[in-house]
């Protein structure tokens, strides 16, 4: 039981995909113009990650070693296509705001990385928890970055007004602000990790 908790927790803090491993940067920067968008992108990526981890670990003894990477890519692409159709049908507004980053979940290094490093070598339950942990860690990072940018840029968090929009720095909602905010967040987290 303690072991399972460790697997789950590893994805959230010690091996956080964004702040520690620096994976999946494109989607991290591209979809965090607001906390809500960041959260939805995190949930979308996390759900694909859980599904692909489970299927990869189920099939790990059947997939020949030589073709394991293409096989993983097909598994991931299948779940991304399913997600794409579901979002298109039920949440057209979200589809418009995340745009091209939904199909691009396929090339998010976190998915292939976890399949290769964890799910291809471990059992179904452990892989499920690993996927869940990484998904939660990724969502946490995206929400943190999205909330920072939304607060500094428009004075809101999740659409709730904190201070008047006129005092916001529009830069943080635009492209350069994404790089700058993420740079400072990683630096702050580095500092906290070093002092602990």
């Amino acid at each position, binding site marked *: 039981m303690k072991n399972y908790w460790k697997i789950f927790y590893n994805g959230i803090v010690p091996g956080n995909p964004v702040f520690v491993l*620096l*994976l*999946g*940067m*494109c*989607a991290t*920067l*591209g979809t965090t113009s607001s906390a809500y968008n960041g959260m939805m992108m995190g949930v979308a990526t996390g759900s694909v990650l859980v599904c692909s981890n489970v299927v990869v670990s189920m099939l790990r003894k059947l997939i020949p070693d030589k073709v394991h990477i*293409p096989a993983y*890519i*097909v598994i991931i*692409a*299948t779940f*991304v*296509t399913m997600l*794409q*159709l579901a979002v298109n049908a039920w949440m057209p507004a979200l589809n418009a705001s995340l745009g*091209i980053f939904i*199909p*691009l979940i*396929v*090339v*998010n*290094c976190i998915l*292939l990385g976890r399949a290769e490093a964890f799910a291809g070598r471990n059992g179904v339950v452990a892989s499920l928890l690993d996927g869940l942990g990484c998904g939660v860690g990724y969502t946490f990072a995206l929400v943190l970055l999205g909330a920072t940018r939304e607060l500094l840029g428009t004075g809101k968090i999740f659409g709730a007004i904190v201070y008047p929009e006129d005092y916001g720095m529009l*830069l943080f909602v*635009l*492209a*350069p*602000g*994404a*790089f*700058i905010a*993420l*740079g*400072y967040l*990683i*630096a*702050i987290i*580095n*500092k906290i990790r*070093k002092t602990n």
Partner: protein
Amino acid sequence: MLTYLSIIITAIFINNIVFAQFLGVCPFFGVSKNTSSALGMGAAVTFVITLATVVAWLLQYFVLNPLGLQFLQTIVFILVIAFLVQLLEIVMKKTLPALYQSLGVFLPLITTNCAVLGVAILVIQKGFNLMESVTYSFSTALGFTLALWLFAGIREQLELAAVPKAMRGVPIAMICAGLLAMAFMGFSGIKF
């Protein structure tokens, strides 16, 4: 003619793939430590993006659309890219060993470069014809190379700077990229 010029200028400067669209950010931070490897990566990416876009365009309009299989787009495109990169590696090893020596290490990395899949999908979404697609993909890749090369120059200088401990490495690189992106925002006033 003006459409092509506008596609080229937009793709390289105004809507730069790294600074405005956030595609290809992973290799952007990974391979920008020195200018020569940045140019090598840029050349390899330019080659693959252009080739992959042409193949993806042909597949979309001659296979997926007539058969009504548009929903398979993501799976087909990613497999095409992975296949192309592999093929390119094998062909280049046999026929152009000198070029392979210089680009070789970067080739396998390109499959997971989201710029390649991103451009292939964007071209279909924008409804470009084949010639426009080639122009768009080639100039987007040039924009990527330009960004990578500029940024590698900055990072070479950064090695010599006294940066606070917690900011060393990726954080300071991110902030520099942000400042560079701000400079590129200056182009957004250009209209055709």
